[in-house]
């Protein structure tokens, strides 16, 4: 069932590496001390942000799905509510980020894209929390949750901008994408 790297296409290798980076950064995030346990930095979204400039729309969506199911398999949470929240939140965030980047490329930076993604993610998760676990009490948690999301996504967006400007790896793949798409 395992496939040799050499026989995978370049796009498959790139998607697999980006998805693996999502999972790796998610692991790193657990090690970072946070002021409140429910606050997430969203580091796992960094590869999605930095790859928007060298993946097509279809490839970006595939990356989002790989990230969701990969995390579910590694953490073993595929059949838990955690996966459902991850699925809903990540799909909403992915849709907003990919659409915003490709539709508004000249008007929005990765900072704006990151904030939109966090907003989508958090709103869907609040809805799911309301329907499945917490009932109306979920709405009480919404304001601090959304504010925390705004702050952390802003930091992530700024970091993503610095990363894409400084990274040799990103530059190579942007160049490769330009050659691929003419």
């Amino acid at each position: 069932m395992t496939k040799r790297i050499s026989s995978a296409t370049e796009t498959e290798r790139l998607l697999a590496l980006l998805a693996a980076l999502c999972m790796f950064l998610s692991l790193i995030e657990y090690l970072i001390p946070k002021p409140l346990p429910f606050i997430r930095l969203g580091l796992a979204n960094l590869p999605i942000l930095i790859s928007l400039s060298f993946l097509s729309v279809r490839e970006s969506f595939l990356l989002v799905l790989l990230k969701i199911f990969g995390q579910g398999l590694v953490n073993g949470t595929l059949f838990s509510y955690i996966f459902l929240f991850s699925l809903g939140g990540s799909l909403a965030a992915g849709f907003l980020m990919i659409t915003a980047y490709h539709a508004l490329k000249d008007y929005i930076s990765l900072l704006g894209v990151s904030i939109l993604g966090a907003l989508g993610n958090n709103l869907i998760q609040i809805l799911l929390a309301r329907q499945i676990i917490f009932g109306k009490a979920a709405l009480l948690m919404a304001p601090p949750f959304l504010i925390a999301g705004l702050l952390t996504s802003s930091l992530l967006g700024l970091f993503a901008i610095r990363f894409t400007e400084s990274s040799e790896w990103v530059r190579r793949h942007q160049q490769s994408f330009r050659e691929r798409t003419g």
Partner: protein
Amino acid sequence: MKPFAKLPAEFRFWTGLAALFPYLFLESMILRGFLVFYFILLAILSGKRFKAAPNLLMLGGIVLAHLFIPNGRILWEWGPLTLTVGSLQNGLTKGFLVIGLIYLSRLTVSPQLAIPGRAGALFSLTFYYFEELSGGPRLTRTSLISQIDKRLLEMDAKTASPAPRPAPAEGGALRRALYLSLLLLPVWTAAAGERLYALLG
């Protein structure tokens, strides 16, 4: 002692799936609570990690949220919080469901699960890169961008190395039969017992 740590991933998957549905539809708080502890024990015997604090925090949070929706006999009041029997039961029932599903899912699913076709090959490659990234030197806060960049460039260079094979599974027929009965018997007994009680009650 981890007697079930190396059972085949596909066997775990189908066994876990068979336990998932009856557990999902259980209504009794006590039965769900018992099964949570049971799943945690089985998960530890299967080599999974367990930390009490995050689970207690999660349970506490879910129960607290339900206390804002009073239901039934009042036990205690303090400011906006009214502790009622119904809300406590609802919170605990929901909390046990969430935590129980996490550990049942961990028993059921693992990265060694062979997914067929192109999707399976892509996941295999993803886990290979994940292991390579995780196995490298620890990232430090200084020059974080250049550390991540360097690691990505190294991964790009790995075009000729074969993806590793998953670790061979162990577990003879007796061990599998033991695992099967330990996981399925309590869950199905609880589910059948609850239905019977409801029919006769």
